């Protein structure tokens, strides 16, 4: 088990390097012109060229990449072209905001999707229909649209929640909860829909399986069949969809942050993209890539625990 984990960890690291390399060359396929973004539209071409030279982006892309990855290996992701601050400290400042949104949303997604799936499977026929309709609505409304709706109704019209901004957990717990409540709700619905449908489907498959019938013949009640054998066997498909919705929520948070003007990775990403701030873009690639790869690794290891058959002999 430990060797398997180490091997996976190693291949995750290789994958992260691959992702970073691909991204770096993508930022250069059509050339990169951060000078224009920094100096503005009124600067002369000579000034822009000089700025680009100063930033070093006129050098061959391979040598730029070699410098970048060499520094990155030592934990230095360079300085932002725009703010001149170190990318690592920029990310450190923004990461808690995005992680607050994503992790809270993931927690609710996990709990709600399981509850809905159990309700659909164990309840009556109308319960199943209700869950399916809820799931459909969740799939139709992208997080940013729902966020706009929540903002217009609850924050702007009724003033129940702060319109924008983020309160750090360390500063005020209740302020933190209030500031992330609406974004988390917006981010959660879509994930709940997907995961609940997946969990419902696999629970139904499991419950109609041969071994459930055999266990039933031995006098086990519906409750223990559903909660013990059903959930345990449906869990792996549910976990897979949960890890997929994690990636979706991370992407969605970039857009939801804009709606609620939260200083997270998403707002940073939009600024960096429009100003061709490559060090920041690359920092974002590394951090989101690492988080996604880590989640996939964690999912795989949990799968081994859930599916005895997948464990190494």
């Amino acid at each position, binding site marked *: 088990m430990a060797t398997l984990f180490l091997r996976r960890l190693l291949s995750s690291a290789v994958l992260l390097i691959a992702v970073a390399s691909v991204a770096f060359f993508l930022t250069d396929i059509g050339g990169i012109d951060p000078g224009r973004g920094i100096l503005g539209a009124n600067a002369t071409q000579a000034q822009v060229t000089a700025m680009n030279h100063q930033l070093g982006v006129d050098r061959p892309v391979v040598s730029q990449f070699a410098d970048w990855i060499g520094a990155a290996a030592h934990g230095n992701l360079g300085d932002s072209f725009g703010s001149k601050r170190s990318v690592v400290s920029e990310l450190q400042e923004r990461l808690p905001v995005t992680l607050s949104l994503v992790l809270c949303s993931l927690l609710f997604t996990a709990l709600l999707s399981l509850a809905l799936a159990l309700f659909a499977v164990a309840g009556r026929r109308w319960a199943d229909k209700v869950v399916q309709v809820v799931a459909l609505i969740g799939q139709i409304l992208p997080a940013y649209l729902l966020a706009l709706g929540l903002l217009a109704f609850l924050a702007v019209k009724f003033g129940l929640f702060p319109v924008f901004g983020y309160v750090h957990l360390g500063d005020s717990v209740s302020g933190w909860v209030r500031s992330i409540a609406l974004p988390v709700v917006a981010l959660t619905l879509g994930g709940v829909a997907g995961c609940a449908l997946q969990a419902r489907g696999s629970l139904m498959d499991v419950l109609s399986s041969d071994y459930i019938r055999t266990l039933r013949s*031995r006098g086990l009640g519906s409750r*223990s069949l559903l909660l013990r054998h059903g959930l345990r066997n449906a869990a792996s498909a549910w976990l897979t969809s949960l890890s997929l919705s994690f990636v979706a929520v991370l*992407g969605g948070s970039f857009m939801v942050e804009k709606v609620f003007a939260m200083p997270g990775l998403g707002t940073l990403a939009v600024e960096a993209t429009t100003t061709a701030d490559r060090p920041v873009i690359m920092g974002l690639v590394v951090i989101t890539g690492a988080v996604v790869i880590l989640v996939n690794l964690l999912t795989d290891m949990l799968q081994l625990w859930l599916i005895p058959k997948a464990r190494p002999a």
Partner: protein
Amino acid sequence: MSESVELATTNEEWDSSSTLRSLLRNPLACVGLALMLLVLGALVAAIVIGWVSPHAAITGDLRNTRAPVGTAGHLLGTDLAGRDVLLRVIVATRATMFSALLALVVAIGLGVPAGLVAGYYGRWIDLALDWIASLVMSLPALVLLMAIITSLGTSMWITMTSLGAMMAPSVFRLVRSQVIAVRRELYIDAAIVSGLHDARILTRHVLRVVRGPLILMVSLLAAAAVMVQTGLDFIGLGDPSTITWGGMLNEGFAGMSADPYLFAWPGLAMSITIAAFLLVANGTRDALQAHERPETGRRQRSEAHTLEVVSGAGGAEPSVPPEALLAVRNLTVAYPSATGLNDVVRGATLELTRGSTLGLVGESGSGKTQTAFAVLDLLPPNAEVLSGEIWLDGVDLLRLGRKQRERRVREAIAYVPQEPMSNLDPAFTIGYQLTEPLRHRGASRRAARERSAELLRHMGIDSPERVMKAYPHQISGGMAQRVLIAGAVSLEPRILIADEPTTALDVTVQCDILDLLRRLQDEFDMSVLLVTHNLGVVADLCSDVSVMRAGRVVESAPVLDFFARPRHEYSRKLLESVPDENQIRPAYRDADEIDSPAERGLR
């Protein structure tokens, strides 16, 4: 050969007309199709408007800003620059739909050929392409799109082409898996033998099969493309020169303090589009699943009426003889199907007397197992018992409430299934699965473990402690069947219902299991109902026989009478079709005749 080829083709091929028909029967799918028509209508309108008056949607009347919904000439009002909202929503359909289309074309154009090639040729091409696909799938798509936009700008063409490339692996995986599945089918081999060219095999057979699932995938990807495109426009990474719903959302968001609901219209338009794609996708999926699922009970109704029943079920009010421990009377079980109720058991009647072993024989699909499940109270939830009686200990189980019935059945009857491997929960150890029912009945943890170990040893398992620690995939089929029998007898039942307990096992193991069943019947003083299609097993083990055909018991007799004087025509046919010990199946006999002279020569 030709027959099986044809069968495979008809089963596997995606029949477009029947899928479309079941799509139209699904109300939600119809809503989806209607919404799709609405979106397509808006698209056509957008193209016409763009052609007739290209500036209508971008020029506003600054004297008429923020006109409310329902204003004459401006059905949805005007925005902050005095532009007509409805007109802009319609015109934006074009950019959004073309974006989605572009992404889809790229995804399909890359994914389908790659999937066909990888699935069909396999080996290193498959490995290489699959590795690329998994690499692309593990990339955080949004951030990569941002990296591309950093360099190439916000052109819709570039962004959507890139998005399509990132979606291609999903299409690739789908096509590849379908091709691999089809390749395993006989008819492709037949096509190769008959000299069809590779490319023709791929296009004619494989693309036909993959069509349905591909429509499902494409609809889902289209919905995703609309979401991503609109989202990018909304956060300001879209093409500023085109009118899009995302751009309108952005304007609505920026002007929220002036007019909080401007964002609602483009939002609604986008939701309708996504809903159209998703509903059509769901409908397609349901239609495909309905197509895959074979209907239960495929026999014609008329056939049953021509059957003449020799004994038992003929009488009007059959009485239950006192020596019968279990008696089934006129049992009818049906499943709902597209054409109404489909009965799989039609008035079955049988009796199990104390201490006897009743063999329930018949070909597959004759309703044996369904009858057994009805007695065991294990029918699936959609099954309906339409009529009949099931007498246990002088009580008609079907007249009891669910709880009462369950209590009586579980206390008296145990079940040994057909397929040992699929009847053990793969996620729990053998020991857990054996002890759980005992603990459910109040045994202590320790007592349950000791009892289970003892039973396993009794089943001929040498190291029960090791087996109990194992998971189902770690033991053999024969071992698994012993575990299941141990589980069944652990509850000290008076009746054991075994459904084809040896069919899935190796021949050598079959004998052991039959011996075990015989021994246990004596030791535990059980009556046994043995469901089987094997008359050899019946002759070996049973004291009585009931023959089922097309949902009815056509003959019931003591085993000796049955083999000596089968009364029903069908029983005679069954007996004739059994190869006796002297008569080897033709195929083997032929092989023998060819081999044996040589063998004799060697000796």
